[in-house]
């Protein structure tokens, strides 16, 4: 077994153990388990960063492989989680971040055979603008997805006054979940816009490339419109709480469908 495989197994084990321990910690209200889980995630994240750096140093062409994007998406989910944890003390969101990081990392192992063809001189630009911003948007939306589900669940409990005793003191407040949603909108929408419109720019600068509308592009644009609506309602009309939480779930679902569609389409390319 090579060092790279060993690193991959370590990442899966650390994320996997972190996920199991965090879920057990939540179920049994055991703070120590949760703390151990977070430290395992930190360990996994560190190993993951090493792995990514090593892959890029060894073979810069890895940027062209589809599996690399899933890998970096898993990494950015955790990076955003740690950011939210630092800013809002939102340890609770590990409930979404850890399993999804594990899932995306495992998916990056499984998804092979996709090659994204880029003109070599534009690789850095394309990666920075298009893929980088879309991956960050997805990471932000994953966090907002977790926060949205939690908001709706606990909001319902507080409204109906049912099962309040199960809402322990370690559960973050509704306001914190709503702040994650706000960040997801304020940060995610400009990023998504940048990511999406950089594609058109790419078509424009690349010789022999003709822009044509297809179902993939229309789908991405539809998600953008939905996201733009959410952005408008939240920023201009001051939407808060339940409505933006629901709309964020729809945007996230749209992004997931679009991502899966992209993966399938690129897989089918020669």
């Amino acid at each position, binding site marked *: 077994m090579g060092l790279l495989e060993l690193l991959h197994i370590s990442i899966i084990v650390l994320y996997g153990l972190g996920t199991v321990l965090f879920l057990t910690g939540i179920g049994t*209200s055991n703070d120590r388990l949760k703390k151990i889980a977070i430290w395992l995630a930190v360990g996994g994240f560190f190993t993951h960063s090493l792995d990514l750096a090593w892959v890029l140093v060894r073979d810069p062409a890895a940027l062209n492989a589809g599996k690399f994007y899933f890998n970096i998406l898993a990494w950015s989910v955790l990076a955003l989680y740690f950011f939210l944890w630092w800013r809002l003390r939102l340890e609770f969101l590990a409930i979404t971040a850890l399993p999804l990081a594990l899932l995306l990392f495992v998916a990056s192992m499984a998804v092979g055979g996709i090659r994204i063809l880029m003109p070599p001189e534009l690789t850095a630009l394309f990666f920075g603008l298009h893929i980088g911003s879309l991956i960050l948007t997805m990471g932000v939306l994953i966090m907002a997805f977790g926060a949205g589900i939690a908001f709706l669940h*606990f909001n319902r409990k*507080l*409204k109906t*006054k049912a099962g*309040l*005793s199960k*809402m*322990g*003191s370690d*559960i*973050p*407040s*509704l*306001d*914190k979940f709503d702040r994650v949603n706000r960040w997801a909108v304020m940060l995610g929408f400009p990023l998504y816009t940048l990511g999406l419109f950089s594609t058109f720019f790419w078509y424009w600068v690349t010789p022999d490339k003709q822009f044509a509308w297809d179902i993939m592009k229309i789908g991405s644009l539809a998600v953008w419109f939905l996201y733009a609506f959410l952005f408008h309602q939240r920023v201009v009309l*001051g*939407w*808060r*709480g*339940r*409505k933006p939480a629901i709309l964020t779930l729809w945007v996230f679902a749209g992004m997931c469908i679009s991502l899966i569609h992209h993966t399938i389409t690129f897989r089918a390319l020669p």
Partner: protein
Amino acid sequence: MNRKIILLGLNHRTAGVDVREKFALTDIEHFEKGLMAHCPVHECMCLSTCNRVEIVAVAKRVPEREVLDSLLEYWAGVCKGDPSLLVENTYQYVDLEAVQHLFTVACSLDSMIMGEPQILGQLKDAYRKAVDQGAAKTIVNRLLHKSFSVAKRVRTETAIASSAVSISFAAVELAKKIFGDLEGTSAMMVGAGEMAELAVTHLRQNGVKDIIIANRTLSRAKELAESLGGEAIQIESMVDRLHEVDIVISSTGSPVAVIKAKDVKAALKRRKNKPQFLIDIAVPRDIDPNINQLDNVYLYDIDDLKEVVEVNMAQRQEEANKARAVVELETQTFSNWLNSLELQPTIVDLVDKNEEVAFRELSKTLRKIGPVDDKTRAALETLVLSVGKKCLHEPICFLKRRTQEEGSAERFIDLARRMFNLDDEVVPNSAHLNRKSQTCAPEDIDKLIDASKNKEQ
């Protein structure tokens, strides 16, 4: 047990408020000093709160009854009360029961509101005073430190204190679930009910910054505003100010709703949908119940809050069973430590006897070999003492282990004392003939050792 731990006390269950008032200890420092001077106790510590008085003492080697009586008499004397009244209203625990009771008190399992955190702080203060007075020594020190660690363990391992069990605390807890940190939030008190006042006080303690008090009588509102630190307004202008506050607590005597859905809807619009928490403690209700249908508004009436409190109470009862199991386990651990204390005099006697034999044999040897210089003499002394200590190592370890087993300390200590003849026991003249005929002269023992060794070879 060498020194008995005695606990004498009264609480809200054993004594009414008049008795508790009468026998409350107002000057703990002098009381402890007096106890040490007038009662047969080695150490003591006293705790006096509005709900209980606990006197923990470690008795001298006198009968238990005598210690208890002297404690009761002294206590009654200090409080100028009747000792018989005190006897009727107090409980008395000895040794492990006393330990268990103190642990139960520290964990707040014996409190009027189970799980409340104040008692631990009060116990810590009482202990600090006892330490300052020099009344707390080995056993009380260990007992109190153990109580604190048991209380901490109970708080960490059970959910005994995790939920609110009073209406006002429940309101604060719910507000925290909505807003998180209450630092910088604002509240409005509509009406001047006592319960609302209490809730506002709790909110203020939890960081609520601005408070508006709206009342029909402005003078009463101003009075409250002065004591709570807020702004007083007429109830008529309440609706216009509704959008400024995050939390509203209403308790007017109005027969109709004073806060209507349209008022809150308008306030929400002006607040840009910032959440609002409304608490209606009044009966009949002050706030239109339909308000709860609005997004970002959370309305709780008195029944909802009561339900929250009842569920929390039931949860605490369940947790109390877990906590009691922890207390029992920790009492057992403490009992092991107490048992190990009983062994200390035996260890001292064993070592003394050992040193005596070592020096005796050394002087015999020195007489035989003639005069030696000081350096050689010191080396020989070290040698005999260290051989003696090494020989005692295993028996002491054995005794330490065995005395930690439940109920076996006394038997093994007695056996060791007799085996090493630590009490210089002589065979009485009236002893059985068989026992008398067994001689233990040194030459007989030497012969026995030689014979046994030869047989073995």
